[in-house]
């Protein structure tokens, strides 16, 4: 190994610049957390307990976020319950039952994953909400949000599952064939259980994405701050609340929105760590 002092100047400069760039990524994350903390911390110290209450009346100084936290969770959980089984089974089916369809479907699914969330939201407003409205008014609801989110989650969950199955050793399949196991039995007893940690890890990550999704949910959920009494009731999520009220919020109201941003980042952080654990990755 050559010692640093003997390297030409350009190389030493390069090493320095690269180190700075590497530090920058850490700086961005640190900066985001710091800015949110600086804005929200005094408020959290003085009114922290208040955010867990049920009344959101910024005009009267009441900043209870519980119904919106619940709204975020409800919409995301239902979306995941709808999307995950479809995505996992479809990925397995494409790999082991219809390998000839796999490439074209994955290409289409990649395209789906790139469609902007506003476009999914627009589709929800144009088609889904009127359709649910015919059935049970008002249409813009928890269910509409979950259905749109589910459609957005399926492509990513499918790609993650496909990658997880692709990493299984080929000998499992060969052994199964040699034993003349049925493909369904093989999947159920061997392949899916083996890939389960990676699949679940990927799905947990999608849950984080669903919680953080703003536009699509904002456009189809109805945005009423309330505890939903059925899947057909309108709800407002934390993210939608930020997008709706940031434009005119001032003072404590604005600070409360920063506090909800902090909450979102904390929850996604926890989910990410859970996902690392499940996928057996370690990070420092």
């Amino acid at each position, binding site marked *: 190994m050559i010692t640093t002092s003997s*390297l*030409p100047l*350009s*190389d030493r400069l*390069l090493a320095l*610049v*690269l180190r700075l*760039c*590497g530090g920058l*990524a*850490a700086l*961005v*994350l640190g*900066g*985001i957390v710091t*800015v*949110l903390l600086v804005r929200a911390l005094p408020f959290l110290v003085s009114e922290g307990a208040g955010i867990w209450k049920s009344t959101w009346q910024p005009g009267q100084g009441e900043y209870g976020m519980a119904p919106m936290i619940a709204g975020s969770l409800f919409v995301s959980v239902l979306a995941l319950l709808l999307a995950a089984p*479809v995505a996992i*089974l*479809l990925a397995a*089916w*494409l790999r082991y039952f219809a390998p000839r369809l796999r490439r074209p479907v994955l*290409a289409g*699914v*990649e*395209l*789906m994953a*790139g*469609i*902007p969330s*506003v*476009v*999914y939201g*627009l*589709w929800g*407003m*144009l088609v889904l909400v009127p359709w649910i409205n015919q059935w049970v008014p008002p249409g813009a609801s928890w269910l509409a949000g979950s259905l749109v989110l589910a459609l957005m989650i*399926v492509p990513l969950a499918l790609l993650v599952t496909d990658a997880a199955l692709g990493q299984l050793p080929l000998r499992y399949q060969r052994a199964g064939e040699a034993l003349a196991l049925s*493909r*369904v039995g093989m999947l159920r007893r061997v392949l899916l259980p083996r890939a389960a940690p990676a699949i679940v890890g990927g799905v947990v990550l999608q849950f984080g*994405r669903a919680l*953080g999704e*703003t*536009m699509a949910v*904002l*456009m189809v959920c109805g945005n009423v701050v309330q505890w939903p009494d059925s899947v057909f009731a309108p709800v407002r999520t934390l*993210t939608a609340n*930020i*997008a709706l009220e*940031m*434009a005119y919020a001032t003072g404590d109201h604005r600070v409360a929105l*920063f506090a909800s*941003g902090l909450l*979102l*980042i904390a929850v*996604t952080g926890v989910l*990410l760590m859970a996902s*690392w654990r499940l996928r057996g990755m370690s*990070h*420092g």
Partner: protein
Amino acid sequence: MADRVAWLAGLVLLALVMVPVVLMVTALWQQSADVLSAGFLLEDPGRAGRSGGIAALLISTAWILGLCLMVAVPLGLGCALYLSESLPADSRRAQWLGGVLDMLAAVPSIVYGLFGYQFFAITLGLGFSILSGALALSLMVLPLMIRSAEQAMRAVPMGYRQARDALALSRWGWVRRILLPCAAPGIAVGIILSAGRALAETAVLLFTAGYVLRRPDSLFDSGRTLSVHIYDLAMNVPGGMPRAAATAVVLVGLLVILNLLVRRVLRQPMTEALV
């Protein structure tokens, strides 16, 4: 027997995913049929977007996208080089930095919007401007840019690195003459993916780049991107639906073109760029 049932079940699942997508495309097409024309791309919007086209928005979008990439690509390349060249893949610091990147990728986009508003618009005094929006957006696409460039760089064959060491090439010469040309297709894919992500984004821009419909005169003017336009027309402008759908068709069209570009670049073998 079980296998045959599974075949059918799979087809049903596939239909379950594909039918909504087909419905989405037809709904957008029907809504926008009366509006879409060459004029739609060339005219400026009028009456809060209810009439006219999207020329001003295409200009704002191009500015924001261009600036965003001008910031994100060099920084992303630097960080990717640091990860792939200065650090062994299994070192503590590489793992730690990887964790930071995963976290950045997982941060909800609305939080980037909050941060961009507070830091770029207020603290740095850039206000609601193309510059604030582009900077916030560049931070959001940074992890994607870094990860794809890093992958492309790590894929450069080990033999090249051994040859480099045997010839005692300078690091700078190695990076400029061999590593970057070899990794160029992968880096191009990273740039295209980042551009796609940036084009699709709305929440980051709502309170950084703002809503203004006019053509921007400078980087310090507010400007509205296509995606923000779709949101505003659909939610806040009565009678805006047809033009929201038409804008969505244009935006999705752009993204499909980017997607095809990625496919095209990826098909090219890595070594071809060397010659």
